[in-house]
């Protein structure tokens, strides 16, 4: 098991390094479960049908030309507080503005799709004048290309710092690996269909190194918030989803698991996730990835008798072995019990999402999987939607070319010119809690209740004023005509202060 390293600028105390299952209780603090949510997506770009040679890197640059023209940078923040970035020679990226609620983060993520779509179609129009009308720009919200390269959809959660890293590894990681039974986007490979896009590409379990190793989870101590209270949990093991339900549930269920962990540490008691610890997270990830029934691949847990006892109780007496399904039932049951006491407090810390609804949906998906009713979940789970389509296509054309299936798999993720997911939504086949109107709003308006409100307003007014400005996650700066800067350390603070007003006045 890779050694946990904390990239923070404080020494990791002996207590937190040693304790995992029974940390000392942390004094004080009312039961609040405030969380900042974020999703960063790396998109892929390709181009087809051009008359003349045209490479994807050039297309990506063309997509960003209007952005660069306005801001003189391929790294820009938008009126909704989000970050739009072109990694030169690489991926367009969109990172959602800080949100207090998974539904807000979902709306922002969809806004990102809309922004990418618009940039792509506008670039396509311009390129057609020189490269022919057949030129088509594809922008993929997925995690793998045709040549073995992988890229990410990363979630960010602010987590209370006193949750030890060992707890993240032993208790959060098994959840992240097994939640893929409803969050996985699915992938057609030469070795068979898999339920996730990313599993084959991931290395270490938990790491604080940032770039080369590809861990599943990362923690960072960056000045995004009061460093004594929070650290940033960066979840790398996650697929890029088209399904709105999957994106929402990905964040909502992870949030609830984190609430249980934070509360347990706060009160000095067990979480209930102790027996879920995996002996080999990487092996488990690969096994889950190939287990299309979600209940057949046996996972290697550290305390098998303990886990079995917990899992059977969680599934109401049914024995699903030591599998992804069994593990998810355990996490769900622990959260359910936790909510009996803390449900109201959790809801008060959110902005619209109700914890009990999350748990109903969660249990619903698990029960459907237990009953083998995968088609029933095809309106909300990406890999199930994909598999149902691929099966139906194969039934229609028994000698179908495997490349056609790979094509559908890829087209499903094309937010610019895709037809597969779009056909499903046009026919009402996908659950869509966020409608088109809310997405349009999210393109221009920051989410409620975070410093994104200030950043978004600053960007909007700065653009209108024509002043020279810059910003990043924690800083708003006017460069000319006057130099003035405001630091926003607390992501939960959306207060329009006198300092903020002065900053706007300097524009």
């Amino acid at each position: 098991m890779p050694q946990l390293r904390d990239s923070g600028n404080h020494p990791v105390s002996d207590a937190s390094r040693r304790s995992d299952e029974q940390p000392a209780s942390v004094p004080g603090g009312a039961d609040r479960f405030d969380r900042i949510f974020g999703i960063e997506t790396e998109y892929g770009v390709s181009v087809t049908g051009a008359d003349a040679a045209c490479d994807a890197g050039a297309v990506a640059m063309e997509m960003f030309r209007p952005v660069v023209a306005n801001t003189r940078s391929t790294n820009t923040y938008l009126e909704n507080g989000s970050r739009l970035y072109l990694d030169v020679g690489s991926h367009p990226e969109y990172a959602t503005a800080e949100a207090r609620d998974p539904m807000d983060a979902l709306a922002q993520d969809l806004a990102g799709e809309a922004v990418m779509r618009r940039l792509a179609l506008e670039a396509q129009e311009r390129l057609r004048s020189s490269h022919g009308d057949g030129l088509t720009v594809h922008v993929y919200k997925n995690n793998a290309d045709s040549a073995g390269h992988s890229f990410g959809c990363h979630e960010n959660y602010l987590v209370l710092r006193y949750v030890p890293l060992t707890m993240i590894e032993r208790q959060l990681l098994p959840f992240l690996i097994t939640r893929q039974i409803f969050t996985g986007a699915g992938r057609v490979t030469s070795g068979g269909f898999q339920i996730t896009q990313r599993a084959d590409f991931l290395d270490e379990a938990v790491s604080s190194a940032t770039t080369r190793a590809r861990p599943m989870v990362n923690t960072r101590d960056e000045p995004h918030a009061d460093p004594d209270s929070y650290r940033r949990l960066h979840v790398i093991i996650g697929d890029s989803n088209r399904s709105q339900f999957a994106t929402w549930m990905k964040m909502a269920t992870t949030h609830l698991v984190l609430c249980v962990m934070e509360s347990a540490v706060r009160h000095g008691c067990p979480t209930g996730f102790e027996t879920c610890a995996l002996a080999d997270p990487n092996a488990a990830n690969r096994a889950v990835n190939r287990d299309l029934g979600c209940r057949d691949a046996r996972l290697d847990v550290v305390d098998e008798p303990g886990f079995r006892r917990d899992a059977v109780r969680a599934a109401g007496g049914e024995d699903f072995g030591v599998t992804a399904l069994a593990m998810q039932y355990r996490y769900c049951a622990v959260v359910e019990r936790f909510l009996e006491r803390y449900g109201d407090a959790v809801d008060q810390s959110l902005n619209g999402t109700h914890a009990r609804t999350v748990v109903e949906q969660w249990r619903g998906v698990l029960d459907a999987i237990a009953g083998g009713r995968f088609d029933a979940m095809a309106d909300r789970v990406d890999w199930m939607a994909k598999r149902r389509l691929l099966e139906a296509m194969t039934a229609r054309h028994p000698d179908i070319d495997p490349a056609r299936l790979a094509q559908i798999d890829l087209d499903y993720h094309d937010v610019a010119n895709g037809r597969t997911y779009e056909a499903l939504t046009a026919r009402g086949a996908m659950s869509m809690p966020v409608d088109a109107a809310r997405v349009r709003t999210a393109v221009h308006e920051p989410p409620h209740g975070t410093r994104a409100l200030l950043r978004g307003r600053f960007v909007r007014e700065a653009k209108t004023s024509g002043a020279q400005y810059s910003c990043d996650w924690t800083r708003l700066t006017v460069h000319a005509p006057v130099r003035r800067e405001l630091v926003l350390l607390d992501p939960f603070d959306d207060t329009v202060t006198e300092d903020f007003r002065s900053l706007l006045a300097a524009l």
Partner: protein
Amino acid sequence: MPQEFAQARNQESQQPQEQPTVMGESRMNGSVDALDAVLDDIESVLETNAQEYVNSFVQKGGE
């Protein structure tokens, strides 16, 4: 690869389909006609050279 997809569909469509609990309910559960309509939509527009389409996507960089 096509073999693994030419499978359980028959079994699944015979089982009673439960209504999904509300999250913006979809209209399509259990409806084979609608699924066929989706397939028609897709087939009419996918680029004919599937392998070339797939191979055109090579992406550099990323984590």
